[in-house]
């Protein structure tokens, strides 16, 4: 057998085309007679449209058509949960708003022109008047008595209100506890910000009787389902194709109203219509994420063991539910997974999704876990302080070490390296002398802090896990097909879609290993709804865990077919055959060998030679799903920061991530995912926040206002791997896409607070503002004037 490819850092097969400018992203596709679309968008946060006049738009040179909601008359997009009305209120997101507007940027009309410049001229000529209502812009205003309602049916602007867990007797535990702590933690609204904005090109193919839509989505099959529903077409009359995609990070795993409108316009005009979102729209009118508030109370015994956690989670989901996940995605995720890596005996949680007059939210890399991990990690930091324990030691005493572990949240955690990753991470920082440097710096009046975060993340959600959320459409399985052609080359088709995660390489590694093929003999086909019956796309770090398992199964089935065929042709028992580097040979002695090419020739070109009962062709399809709770990747992040007096700048001096995603199919790819994720986590901790003014006008309309960190802000990161293989996936791999983003905010915040320890001030919210840090340091130097400060070495 050849050397296995899985586990090897083989070069990425995506690279050559992307490096030579031959990548093909949506906006790179040009077709004859193509038109260009832009959207007239609402300029008020809340109101009723009193008139929408497009007559001047239609006069603009180059404008071909302009449609309002009334003109297109499409069904809206509604995402549902099977929960009683007291718990969940569905919201319909119209493709174009026809009456009520609920956030600045909501699309009201689609303008179609001969070129993008004319389309932009066109939208400027639209005349819209409104009855303006007072907007609801934050959690407090939304929940206040008598607050204006964003959706009439949602009392208190609450779209979801559930209490998933409430351990009996939990109040008594608090009363009797040696130590109780409280944490109030808020995280800013963020933009996932794939560098490629959203976009779609739709055209009617009369011959296929199909609307063909190229779009950058993480969920092509769901876009197809919704598009067909909104347009009143059979589902087979829509084909969604995803070309190269310039990032997604979650916000492209929901169905956007704009892509539906583009499809509708193309259908009407019977001409290709392309829409490419500009950056302003991407920052203000696309899907946002992350704005949450955690109120936590926790009880500990005198030795620092956590006894109980009482949590209230409020998520500001903006104006509408996203399809298919709904506004439930964030509060339900936080509620069910909050205990995280810790042994928690008693748990009570309330999770709410509230609606406000801001752009709607969608899942973003990590989904609630960056936030709940930050809040829970603050709980342990605070308890450590109260009890005089070392922050690492208190974690060590509480992390789950016996697997499988059944949590208070009714989830079974599969084996991980929670304790080992923590120990290793601390060891690295100690061995590199960071604790000594911290003590030294304190002597010089500098402010160094060391912070950690420990977490696990559920990946490989199967149908069962999503069904527990009570979603009306339930994600979970995936499908794969493998097809060998007459030359012995293999095409693998998957329902998942890569947008930077190198699936073309990693999926091929899996299939090639299973069949004993050379990597160059395997090609991945993805992101085309006509190529595989259904798929759930790429999100929740599921592609390799679920999609990769389906690929492996399909490849295995094909391998069996090849062996059956070879056994019959060689007239030997099936059991005596093995796959070996593009051949089937006898298990004992290599003397009788038949190559895949020979087998493929028989299967396709010489069917006359096919043994009786063996079908022509060499294809196999398989699905993968899991009935378990999923599989848990884990990591510990350790950070050293220095706070600068005068500017309040937080400089990251060292970042260590010890991660365990089970079997790493391609370690380079895993590291890339970690690094990129950590960069986004640091961005959330220190830099990025979407803000609105008092009228609900977005204040971040470009990269001048929305501060995305650059190479100057993101440090080099040390990544160490542990490997606890998953027991439920076919490859032993767990998900690797989101972990970096989950661990970073908590670790950075803890490090900042460690540096602030002498000041007595603790920060709980992100993004951490330089002003806050500066103020804390100023107060401290004032309070300690003339006193030399010494930090306790940990």
């Amino acid at each position, binding site marked *: 057998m050849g050397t296995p490819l899985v586990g090897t850092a083989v070069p990425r097969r995506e690279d050559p085309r992307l490096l030579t400018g031959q990548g093909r992203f949506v906006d790179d596709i040009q077709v004859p007679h193509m038109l260009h679309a832009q959207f007239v968008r609402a300029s008020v946060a809340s109101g009723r449209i009193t008139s929408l006049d497009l007559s001047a738009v239609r006069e603009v040179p180059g404008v071909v058509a302009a449609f309002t909601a009334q003109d297109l008359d499409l069904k809206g997009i509604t995402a549902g949960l099977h929960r009683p009305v007291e718990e969940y209120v569905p919201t319909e997101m119209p493709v174009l708003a026809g009456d009520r507007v609920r956030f600045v940027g909501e699309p009201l009309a689609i303008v179609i022109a001969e070129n993008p410049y004319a389309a932009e001229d066109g939208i400027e000529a639209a005349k819209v008047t409104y009855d303006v209502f007072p907007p609801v812009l934050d959690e407090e205003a939304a929940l206040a008595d008598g607050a204006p309602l964003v959706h009439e049916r949602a009392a208190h602007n609450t779209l979801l209100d559930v209490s998933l867990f409430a351990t009996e007797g939990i109040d008594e535990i608090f009363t009797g506890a040696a130590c109780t702590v409280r944490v109030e933690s808020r995280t800013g609204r963020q933009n996932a910000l794939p560098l490629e904005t959203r976009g779609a090109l739709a055209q009617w193919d009369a011959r296929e009787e199909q609307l063909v839509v190229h779009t950058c989505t993480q969920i092509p099959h769901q876009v197809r389902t919704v598009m067909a529903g909104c347009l009143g077409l059979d589902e087979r009359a829509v084909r969604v194709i995803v070309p190269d995609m310039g990032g997604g990070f979650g916000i492209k795993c929901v169905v956007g109203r704009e892509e539906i409108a583009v499809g509708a316009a193309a259908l009407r005009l019977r001409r290709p219509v392309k829409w490419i979102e500009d950056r302003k729209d991407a920052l203000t009118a696309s899907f946002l994420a992350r704005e949450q508030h955690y109120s936590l109370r926790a009880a500990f015994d005198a030795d620092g063991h956590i006894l109980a956690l009482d949590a209230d989670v409020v998520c500001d989901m903006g104006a509408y539910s996203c399809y298919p996940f709904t506004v439930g995605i964030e509060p339900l995720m936080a509620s069910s997974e909050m205990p995280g890596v810790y042994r928690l005996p008693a748990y009570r949680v309330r999770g709410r999704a509230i609606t406000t007059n801001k752009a709607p939210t969608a899942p973003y890399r990590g989904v609630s876990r960056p936030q709940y991990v930050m809040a829970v990690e603050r709980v342990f930091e605070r308890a450590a302080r109260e009890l005089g324990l070392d922050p690492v030691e208190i974690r060590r005493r509480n992390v789950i070490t016996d697997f499988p572990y059944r949590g208070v949240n009714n989830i079974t955690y599969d084996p991980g390296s929670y304790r080992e990753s923590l120990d290793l991470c601390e060891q690295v920082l100690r061995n590199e002398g960071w604790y000594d440097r911290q003590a030294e710096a304190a002597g010089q009046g500098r402010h160094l802090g060391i912070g950690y975060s420990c977490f696990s993340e559920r990946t490989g959600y199967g149908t069962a896990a999503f069904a527990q959320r009570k979603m009306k459409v339930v994600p979970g399985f995936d499908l794969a097909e493998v097809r060998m052609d007459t030359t012995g080359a293999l095409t693998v088709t998957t329902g998942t879609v890569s947008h930077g995660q190198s699936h073309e390489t990693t999926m091929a590694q899996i299939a090639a290993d299973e069949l004993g093929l050379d990597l160059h003999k395997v090609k991945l086909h993805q992101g085309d709804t006509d190529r595989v019956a259904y798929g759930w796309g790429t999100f929740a770090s599921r592609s390799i865990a679920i999609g990769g398992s389906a690929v492996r199964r399909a490849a295995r089935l094909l391998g069996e077919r090849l062996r059956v065929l070879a056994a019959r042709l060689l007239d030997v028992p099936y059991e005596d055959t093995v796959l070996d580097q593009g051949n089937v040979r006898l298990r004992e002695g290599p003397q009788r060998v038949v190559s895949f090419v020979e087998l493929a020739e028989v299967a396709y070109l010489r069917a006359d030679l096919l043994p009786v009962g063996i079908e022509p062709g060499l294809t196999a399809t398989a699905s993968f799903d899991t009935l378990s709770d999923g599989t848990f990747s884990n990591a510990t992040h350790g950070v050293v920061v220095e706070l600068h007096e005068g500017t309040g700048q937080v400089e990251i001096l060292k970042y260590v991530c010890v991660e365990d995603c089970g079997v790493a199919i391609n370690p380079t790819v895993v590291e890339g995912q970690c690094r990129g994720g950590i960069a986004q986590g640091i961005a959330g901790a220190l830099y990025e926040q979407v803000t609105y003014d008092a009228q609900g006008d977005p204040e971040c309309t470009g990269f*001048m206002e929305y501060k995305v960190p650059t190479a100057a802000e993101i440090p080099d990161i040390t990544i160490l791997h542990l490997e606890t293989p998953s027991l439920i996936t076919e490859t032993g791999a767990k998900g690797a896409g989101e972990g970096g983003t989950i661990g970073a905010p908590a670790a950075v915040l803890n490090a900042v607070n460690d540096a602030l320890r002498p000041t007595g001030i603790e920060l709980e919210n992100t993004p951490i503002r330089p002003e806050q840090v500066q103020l804390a340091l100023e107060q401290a130097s004032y309070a300690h004037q003339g006193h030399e400060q010494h930090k306790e070495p940990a």
Partner: protein
Amino acid sequence: MNSATDQQLVTLTVNGTSREVVLDPRRTLADTLRHELGLTGTHLACEHGICGACTVLVDGRPARSCLMFAVQAEGRQVRTVESLGEGDQLGDLQQSFADHHGLQCGFCTPGFLMLAEGFLAQNPDADREEIREAVSSNLCRCTGYQTIVDAVEHCAAARRTQRTGRLPYEGNAQ
């Protein structure tokens, strides 16, 4: 008002070849390269000069092609990502990006390549910190930048070796 009447004939020299295009004077260089000349390697991610995805070389220096009108490029040498390497053979900088996993989705990549190409031409002896500083003028959302800095640094070192016959890293602080 009618844009059709304002069209101009512009001659551009792109990747060493002279090309004539008829265009609206407000057409940016980026749009012209992409849509008139079919050089879609140059990407747009902000169209306001911040992200650097649209970086090309104009007379050898990195420039934001979203901030230039095509007419402003007349008489100047424009180079795009399509000029790096030969045919399907990757150039050394491109190969270095592949070797160091300096790209994931690849959307920012042409901009970084052209930025680095222009930067290294002017600063062949740049050290890691200078490279990081230069690279910080473009945005990448996927990689966390470290591997991009690695890629540029290694390419610079390899070029120095070729030029001087010295081993990579010789004379560099470790």
